[in-house]
């Protein structure tokens, strides 16, 4: 596999600080993996650009801490833990001595993108090389201090150890190491066989902060003078303010300002802000899609499909048309952004998967030069793609500018669900032409709602990339058809799939199915399997569902087998797949949005039915395949196969042909 050469060089003199430029080859690869299929245009308005370089900065402090400012967002996926493990591995540092703060948005350009399941794969080499370079300098510094050959020294627990037992902490060596340009030992990462930290199941480095309430999200920050702000938004999508009687006289209200998305209230507390918002008398325009509902969208999506090509002669078609509803990202932490806009500069705090683009867009919105907007990236309470966009940051900046004070803007949950963004509604048509006991030709066409992109069904609905993007729906449609083909051919679904898969995909399918597939199940239960290959990784999922009450199905078991190449943290990988399984269960069975006359019907977790504990599998297993390959992606990997396995299991349990998702809507 091609690897960009990583140049490591010393930056500062007082402590050892190293910077490694990263290539964006992996990013390009991730984008290619997400590239839309023909007839299924890209619908996200996320612009992912960047210069060819970004920098990962490692610093060893005098207090014996290793600090790496990470050009990625931590949204729960565990990237800070994975990178800490890579650094600890190559430095022989204690994991507890490694801190991974999130880097501010770079102002000198550069890629700082979190998405496309690319973080681990893009950081694996640079992070290890960076730490190996730091280790070589620390060892050299100790050798010169002790007048012993550097190659006789070992490193262990954030300390350099001499053969005679002398020790020196990295912190005590950092000043001397910072002056070393030509280390006496090679700065090369360890061979994988020597890994002690990489590959070991490891608890998140922030786990204690997360269980004690100490972890700080944007809304928990104390920024001097920043006051709570909320926005009154149009009941209908795309509606605008016609007139407003403002509520400036309400108790606790500090400012009421108009922004393009509505009317913002700044107040002493969020209670005051919400009360004043609700008291505003606003006349809204009905918006550009005020008469449009789900049925109309469905009809228009279907009409936008290209005509089916001719079937091969003598073949038998097995086909289906599939409808997928809009789905909210609904991260637990609603969009929140703190903004302090002054006449000549601005400073913002929020979570962003694309902070460089966010800073540029904020600057444009408030008419400041791009270099005058500073963005601090804050940990997020979930994302699932939602924080690729930075709607709240732009709003917060506009409100702060208009109100002439720092503000802490928070979307309400109703804002979040009713105003998006959302996974677009998608219509898929799959036709398999079967001849001589196999699929002679497979046609898969899709159209989805698009937001101003000029193709697909172009509607002014706020959309965004949702974990696994197109694959989350395309895999479902194809696996259902594969099952239906297997049935017409009287073939076992696993055996039939095996004939169509690459070797690593076959291996994960065999592993997931082993000992369980085909076992005797109670009446109205069903099994389903699905296999997905993306991000340089392979995953098979087996689901067992109890559909005794087809309106209240319960997925009882999820078994996944996964090959992601080299695994950094098996415990973190399992967590990602657990979440992906719940996304699959939710989007297939219960969780979708409805559009009624231009408005989203749902407004909270009371009606947007993301799965709860009672819908989670009692039995959940992940088998991780051993591999020496470079790391592939994992964050989104589990969603398509989980969704498809649940759908095929439901079909078998109920003897139905599911075509509209979520099934229980």
């Amino acid at each position: 596999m091609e690897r960009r050469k990583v140049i490591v060089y010393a930056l500062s003199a007082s402590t050892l600080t190293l910077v490694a430029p990263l290539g964006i080859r992996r990013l390009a690869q991730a984008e290619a993996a997400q590239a839309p299929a023909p007839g299924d245009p890209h619908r996200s308005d996320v612009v992912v650009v960047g210069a060819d370089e970004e920098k990962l900065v490692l610093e060893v402090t005098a207090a014996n801490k290793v600090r790496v400012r990470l050009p990625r967002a931590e949204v729960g996926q565990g990237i800070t833990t994975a990178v800490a493990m890579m650094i600890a591995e190559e430095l022989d540092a204690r994991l507890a001595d490694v801190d991974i703060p999130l880097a501010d948005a770079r102002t000198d350009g550069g890629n700082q993108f979190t998405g496309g399941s690319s973080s681990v794969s893009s950081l694996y080499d640079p992070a290890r090389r960076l730490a190996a370079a730091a280790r070589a300098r620390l060892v050299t510094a100790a050798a010169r201090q002790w007048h012993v050959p550097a190659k006789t020294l070992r490193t262990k627990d954030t300390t350099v150890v001499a053969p005679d037992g002398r020790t020196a902490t990295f912190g005590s060596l950092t000043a001397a190491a910072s002056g070393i340009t030509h280390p006496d030992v090679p700065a090369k990462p360890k061979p994988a066989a020597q890994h002690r930290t990489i590959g070991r199941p490891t608890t998140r480095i922030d786990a204690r902060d997360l269980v004690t309430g100490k972890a700080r999200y944007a809304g928990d920050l104390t920024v001097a003078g920043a006051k709570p702000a909320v926005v009154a938004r149009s009941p209908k999508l795309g509606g605008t303010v016609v007139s407003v009687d403002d509520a400036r006289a309400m108790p606790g209200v500090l400012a009421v300002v108009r922004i393009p998305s509505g009317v913002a209230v700044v107040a002493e507390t969020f209670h005051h802000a919400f009360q004043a918002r609700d008291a505003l008398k606003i006349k809204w325009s009905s918006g550009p899609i005020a008469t449009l509902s789900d049925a109309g969208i469905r009809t228009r999506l279907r009409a936008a499909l290209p005509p089916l090509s001719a079937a091969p002669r003598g073949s038998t078609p097995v086909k289906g048309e599939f409808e997928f509803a809009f789905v909210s990202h609904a991260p637990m932490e609603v969009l929140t952004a703190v903004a302090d806009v002054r006449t000549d500069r601005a400073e913002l705090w929020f979570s962003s998967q694309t902070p460089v683009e966010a800073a540029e867009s904020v600057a444009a919105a408030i008419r400041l030069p791009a270099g005058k907007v500073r963005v601090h990236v804050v940990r997020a309470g979930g994302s699932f793609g939602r924080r690729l966009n930075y709607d709240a940051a732009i709003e917060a900046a506009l409100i702060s500018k208009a109100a002439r004070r720092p503000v802490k803007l928070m979307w309400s949950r109703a804002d979040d669900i009713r105003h998006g963004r959302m996974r677009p509604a998608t219509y898929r048509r799959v036709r398999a032409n079967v001849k001589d006991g196999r699929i002679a030709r497979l046609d898969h066409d899709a159209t989805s709602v698009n937001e101003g992109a000029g193709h697909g069904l172009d509607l002014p609905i706020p959309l965004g990339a949702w974990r696994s993007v197109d694959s989350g729906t395309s895999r479902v449609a194809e696996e259902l058809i594969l099952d239906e083909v297997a049935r017409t051919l009287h073939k076992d679904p696993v055996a039939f799939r095996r004939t169509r898969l690459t070797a690593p995909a076959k291996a994960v399918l065999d592993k997931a199915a082993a000992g369980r597939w085909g076992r005797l199940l109670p009446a109205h239960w069903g099994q389903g399997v699905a296999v997905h290959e993306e991000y340089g990784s392979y995953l098979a999922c087996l689901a067992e569902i109890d559909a005794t009450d087809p309106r209240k199905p319960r997925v009882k078991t999820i078994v996944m087998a996964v090959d992601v190449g080299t695994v950094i943290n098996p415990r973190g990988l399992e967590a990602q797949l657990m979440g992906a399984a719940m996304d699959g269960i939710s989007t297939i069975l219960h969780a979708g949005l409805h559009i009624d006359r231009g408005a989203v019907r749902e407004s909270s977790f009371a009606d947007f039915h993301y799965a709860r504990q009672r819908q989670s599998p009692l039995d959940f297993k992940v088998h991780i395949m051993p591999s020496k390959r470079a790391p592939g992606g994992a964050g989104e990997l589990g969603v398509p196969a989980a969704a498809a396995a649940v759908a095929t299991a439901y079909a078998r349990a109920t003897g139905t042909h599911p075509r509209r998702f979520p099934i229980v809507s």
Partner: protein
Amino acid sequence: MPQYSLTVNGEPVTVDAPADMPLLWALRDLLGITGPKYGCGIGACRACTSHLDGAEIQPCVVPIADCAGRQVTTIEGLADGDHLHPVQQAWLDCDVAQCGFCQPGQIMAAVALLNRTPHPTDADIDKIENVCRCGTYHRVRQAIKKASGHH
């Protein structure tokens, strides 16, 4: 503006607030106690779950006036100094949290469940309504079972 005195995590506090201010905003915006999270404001997602006189509540739907003279416990009040509550320790041992935003509420709900039902069945655990959008439910279940050994 009315004044309310209550005990939060063992400390007596007094707040000036309108009677209908939800406890959540009194905690977060007046007292700076940010462990309880806003997730919906209508008691549906339960990210703010805390305890009032030892019983589970959703502070986003409990007015401050109803808390006068009573004991409020948030996630910050669960540990005994550096010594974690057994449920927090079980959460750590099972590495439950992902983004962590709902976890203060999940933990407070689990503590309340275990106080009521020291050895909960799967059916008891299924009754927990707290939403976790990262989908940590399986580890939540494991951690509750692990912690129930301590009760």
